[in-house]
């Protein structure tokens, strides 16, 4: 995902950056049957947990994002990816709610992933890291909440892969979820989405510096492969209209074609920049593992092929949201979720926002989205008796 553009510049909320360590022979048993003997979960919180422990909001991050939701990212120095949504007076008001976001299992921002040391060998995991699933990510989040003494989530929210985690939460821990907001997501990864991920993975693996996944030991980084993976993926997060509006056929710092393969066009230069900056903050093997987790996601398959079966015990209020120009996770996918929730007689709302900015719209300044989400969260909090601010 691209980082959200900060339109306003208010003081970011006070962030508490922390880690939770889980040890023991079977710290986390994964869906694959393999175990992680040691697990560190890196997370950030904003605001304060109230005495009733009823104001916790879990934000689940997307593929290429991390736990730095609303405070400056320590690696890039840029504002948090959802600082338009999380902060004092915003949709997720940090004066009213206790916001938690954890880096996913397999990630590279502090939570245990392929670049960390395998305690069995004393070497980096690399490709010996077990394949993880969306379910495993959610299991680790649940362990973190247990550690924090939080039994119930006022809201669990996320876009894209974050939305997959939200759906998994609704299916696996329905009793812990008061309200849920799966945004720009799907109950299963489509063939087209798997195909795009495969292009990205093949780009990484085709880079000689990938070294069969063992690049850390060789002291190199498959930066070219990872950059190409990011460039291809980034196109899928935008829309044709947004690319046309932003770049058109405008040339980059020149009046005429170079008649060579430099970045003549602005759009090329932009994509190259996206690729380069991604390499500085993301681990190539993490990218392989996390894209795989998304590919494997199919919530209906886990419930006898019937998606409604995943939501049988759900009492939560749910707000499903999509964007008109999102062709990666199109509205039709959100409607399938809504259909299943209706079939399970769940309390579901659905809204489709009109924007031309594509899949990444959920990270951007969409006032209608803020209005809907704000109303939804605030009414869930009122219903649950969470005190209003002021």
């Amino acid at each position: 995902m691209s980082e959200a553009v900060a339109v306003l510049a208010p003081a970011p909320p006070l962030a508490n950056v922390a880690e939770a360590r889980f040890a023991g022979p079977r710290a986390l048993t994964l869906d694959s049957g393999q175990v992680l003997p040691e697990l560190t979960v890196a997370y950030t919180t904003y605001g304060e947990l109230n005495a009733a422990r009823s104001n916790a909001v879990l934000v689940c991050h997307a593929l290429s994002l991390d736990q730095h939701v609303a405070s400056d990212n320590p690696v890039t120095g840029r504002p948090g990816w959802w600082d338009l949504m999380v902060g004092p007076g915003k949709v997720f008001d940090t004066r009213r709610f206790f916001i938690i976001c954890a880096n996913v299992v397999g990630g590279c921002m502090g939570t245990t992933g392929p670049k960390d040391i395998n305690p069995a060998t004393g070497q980096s995991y690399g490709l010996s890291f077990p394949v993880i699933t969306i379910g495993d990510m959610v299991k680790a989040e649940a362990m973190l909440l247990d550690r924090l003494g939080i039994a119930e989530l006022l809201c669990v929210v996320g876009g894209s892969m974050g939305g997959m985690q939200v759906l998994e939460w609704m299916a696996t821990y329905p009793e812990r979820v008061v309200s849920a907001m799966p945004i720009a997501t799907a109950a299963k990864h489509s063939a087209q989405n798997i195909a795009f991920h495969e292009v990205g993975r093949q780009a990484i693996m085709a880079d000689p510096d990938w070294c069969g996944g063992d690049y850390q030991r060789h002291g190199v980084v498959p930066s070219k492969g990872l950059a190409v993976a990011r460039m291809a993926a980034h196109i899928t997060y935008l829309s044709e209209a947004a690319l046309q509006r932003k770049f058109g056929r405008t040339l980059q710092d020149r009046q005429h074609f170079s008649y060579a393969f430099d970045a003549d066009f602005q759009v090329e230069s932009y994509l190259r920049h996206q690729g380069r900056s991604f390499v500085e903050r993301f681990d190539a093997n993490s990218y392989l593992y996390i894209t795989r987790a998304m590919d494997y996601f199919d919530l209906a398959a886990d419930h006898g092929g019937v998606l409604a079966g995943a939501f049988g015990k759900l009492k939560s209020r749910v707000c499903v949201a999509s964007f008109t120009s999102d062709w990666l996770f199109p509205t039709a996918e959100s409607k399938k979720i809504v259909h299943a929730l209706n079939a399970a007689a769940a309390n579901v709302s659905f809204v489709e926002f009109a924007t031309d900015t594509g899949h990444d719209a959920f990270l951007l300044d969409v006032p209608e989205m803020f209005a809907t989400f704000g109303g939804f969260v605030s009414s869930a909090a009122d219903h649950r008796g969470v005190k209003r601010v002021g």
Partner: protein
Amino acid sequence: MAHLSQDLAVIADMVLPGTRVLDVGCGDGALLEHLARTKNVDGRGVELSQAGVNACVARGLSVVQGDADSDLADYPTGAFDYVILGQTIQATRYPRTVLQQMVRIGRHGIVSLPNFAHWRMRTSLLGRGRMPVTRALPNAWYDTPNIHMCSVRDFSELAQELKLTIDRVVSLRGGKPHAVKPFSISANLFAEQAIFLLRGA
């Protein structure tokens, strides 16, 4: 709480307490909220406008953005006790299909509609030769969302043709509700609006 319009008050009166209700074209959710508060109704809504959906969601109601023509097919059969079409049927593209969906999804259907055969409409068309613009139908012909206008009698005939049972008809006349018969000549002349309580075969 917002005051209910008269047709919504009549609709609310038809709904039994403790039931499940789907309000198609629920607007800002006034009826659903009223039913939840006064009759312990478990309600859901369908609404086309973003503003309406936002208002509903902020009220804590469960509302799906969508339209009657395309989205009712997604609802399971017999999922609701009542499916309500409040001032909605005349704005749908396929009123017949929508009515069939209504009685498939709900055990009962409630439809309120403006009566195009009201005497004011008749005199407007007859006397002035213009499409009527009235309190119940305030839009000019070119910007009205109402594309399938009908009279009380027209609707009664369609219900009969679709083999729906008409359990009750209430007319609003001068803002006051009156129980009427589906094919009553005077209702067709004097009802500004009519509210039908229906059942499938």
